[in-house]
């Protein structure tokens, strides 16, 4: 007797968000990236078509990072001194998107200036045709001082500006609205906090198809289970029809995993941890695949080798099973 497979029918769906604009649409990107649109839990092809695969972003910096794992610096080599070369290398490594993360200071410790930042952003846009996300350094005043001129200088490119948090979102949202960009909204692993911030941002009049949400994650071993469950709950809420959770989710496993001791340190660690480089890449890939299973639409990585492994996993997750 054939089994009747229980299928979920959800009233809600995730909004579709497009990042980047080609010349036809007022930008200069060679392609755009569209995420979201899900009408079922992750990769449930037998319930409904999965409209857009998750996308992989690589994080680059505006200058040589001070605190990155030596493994990352060895891999990227000299390009870390030049954001445009780094962007090219990221594109060559297979990234779908580039995240340019700004440093709070220059190499001598002076605060980063708007002129430097605008130049870095323009250089990156010139070097690579991929859609771009620009993240501030996480200091409210400085982020606002840097992101507003960036938004103005790149009007129409549909860049994602971030990171909006409850303490600091108004200026970023306002400039994104005025200059045809998008925003990403980060909240600490909690459905209600995520909703609250999304409400605040949409109350300002931000079009809902220009918002990504970042529910925050922890690395494997450092709180990933909280992020995993927060994402599952957010996605369930979205499918159940809760409008203020119906945004594509972006998470930063690269940032989280590469600050762990497992990835940062090669000597004086337990032998049971195994080979340093392989372990560090596994840490990033395993964290990322876990988050894909819980609904991530964009994952931001740091190591080029992880990109290949994660993209292979995405392709396999997107393969429509023949019985579906």
């Amino acid at each position, binding site marked *: *007797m*054939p*089994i009747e*497979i*229980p299928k979920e029918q959800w009233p809600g769906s995730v909004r579709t968000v497009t990042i980047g604009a080609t010349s036809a649409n007022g930008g200069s990107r060679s392609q755009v990236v569209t995420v979201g649109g899900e009408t079922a*839990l*992750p*990769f*449930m*092809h*037998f319930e409904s078509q999965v409209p857009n695969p998750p996308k992989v972003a690589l994080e680059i910096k505006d200058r040589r990072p001070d605190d990155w794992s030596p493994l990352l610096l060895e891999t990227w080599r000299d390009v870390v001194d030049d954001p445009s070369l780094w962007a090219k290398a990221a594109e060559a490594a297979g990234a779908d998107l580039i995240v340019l993360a700004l440093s709070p200071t220059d190499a001598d410790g002076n605060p980063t200036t708007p002129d430097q930042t605008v130049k870095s952003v323009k250089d990156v846009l010139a070097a690579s045709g991929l859609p771009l996300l620009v993240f501030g350094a996480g200091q409210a005043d400085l982020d606002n001082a840097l992101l507003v001129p960036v938004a103005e200088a790149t009007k129409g490119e549909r860049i994602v500006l971030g990171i909006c948090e409850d303490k600091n979102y108004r200026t970023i949202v306002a400039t994104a609205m005025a200059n045809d960009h998008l925003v990403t909204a980060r909240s*600490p692993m909690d459905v209600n906090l995520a909703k609250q911030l999304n409400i605040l941002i949409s109350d300002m009049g931000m079009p809902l198809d220009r918002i990504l949400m970042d529910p925050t994650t922890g690395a*494997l*071993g*450092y*709180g*990933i*289970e909280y992020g*995993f*469950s927060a994402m*599952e*709950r957010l996605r*369930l809420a979205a499918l159940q029809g809760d409008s203020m959770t119906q945004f594509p989710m972006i998470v930063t496993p690269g940032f989280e995993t590469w*600050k762990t*001791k*497992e990835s*940062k*340190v090669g000597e*004086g*660690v*337990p*032998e*049971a*941890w*195994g*080979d*340093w480089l*392989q*372990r560090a890449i*596994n*840490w990033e*890939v*395993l964290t990322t*695949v*876990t988050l894909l*299973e*819980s609904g991530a639409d964009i994952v931001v990585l740091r190591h080029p080798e992880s990109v290949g*492994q994660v993209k*292979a*996993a995405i392709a*396999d*997750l*997107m*393969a*429509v*099973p023949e*019985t*579906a």
Partner: protein
Amino acid sequence: MALSGIQIYKLLPQTNCKECGFPTCLAFAMKLAAKQVELASCPYVSEESKSQLAESSAPPIRLVTLKSDGYEVKAGNEVVLFRHEKTFYHKPGLFIRVSDKQDAAEIKAGVELADQYLVNYVGIELAVDGFAVAADSGSAQAFASAVQAVRAASQRPLILLASDPAVAQAGLNALSDETALLYAADAGNWEAMADLAKAQKAALAVRAETLDELADLTEKIKAKGVEDLVLDPAAESLSKSLMLETQIRRLALKKNFRALGYPTIRLPRNSAEAVQAITKYTGFIVLDAFSPELVYPLLVLRQNIYTDPQKPIQVQPGLYEINKPGPEEPVLVTTNFSITYFSVANEVESSGLPAWLLVTDAEGMSVLTAWAAGKFDAERIAKAVKEFKAADKVTRRRVVLPGHVAVLSGELEAELPDWEVRVGPREAVDIPKFFKQVLG
């Protein structure tokens, strides 16, 4: 899935004789459904009703236990699809594959290495659970020798990957007094495999290309008297395995579909498949090979996903000694969230530098989480300094705050006027450098 009160009522005598202490059979049925009374209170239930009621109260996913001398690996008995709904209970067993084409010495060396592997994660010693011996050679004798070679090197539970019943039998004969998992019965060999599993008290994995065929097979095998079954839905892509594992769990939990109410087994071919097996419902996982740089993160992932969401893992608040500190050594302050405590304690310990570690009661939260929640502030830290009598242990009164809560230093100076308050680095990795450069 439990029966409803009405369904139970239909199985009762319906005479309303009141001997159970309730005015009607229906009232008693309602209490039974709510698990507030025992069926035994009714003297008149028929044997047939009893067995139906017992069947309905069995867990929707059978608990399967593999056993060997001193070890047990359990899978099944799960009750939810999402860990936030309650928790996941039985961590999937991680098994390492061994081939009977390897010679005995090679097997022994590999198995010993994996058998003795232990890795410490937040104070918990993690290990692999057992070995899966593969009958790659096709020879019964080679298989039996391989099983013996594994047994000589490890006592952990075994999975026998042998679908030729004669070969499987030779492998099982090499074992005694244990419950191994035999892999796998399929449409072709199931009768012989079921007989073998029954005779040797082994659990039996069942493999089929579709869920219909799988359910058919488990019913037939169960009818032969083998109940400890494990399902292999035989998926060849990540999307298909996710679909099938989800469908199996939904059918078991939501439809109480007994024919698929068993734990599952998977043989991942890469790390992404292993991750999916851990996050999405697999009961027994067979890894191709043993490599610490992959086994360590997989064990940690399993630990994380199977943590009870209601109870963060905590350590006891107190004043801990690391590397035999003397009265001149600094007092480092941290929270009682396990991950936080061990990041700091391990760092200080491996640096060889002596220090006192004051663990405050922050309700099991990380430094910043606790700070944001108001559970880690100057007042609480000062209270812990007093409660655990830190002042009695040191002559040089120095407390070091985690760099992430540098903002607390002013208030803490006010709370602890006769202490010197220092701000440490943000990440524990940088503590040894800080000791050398700043504390001198």
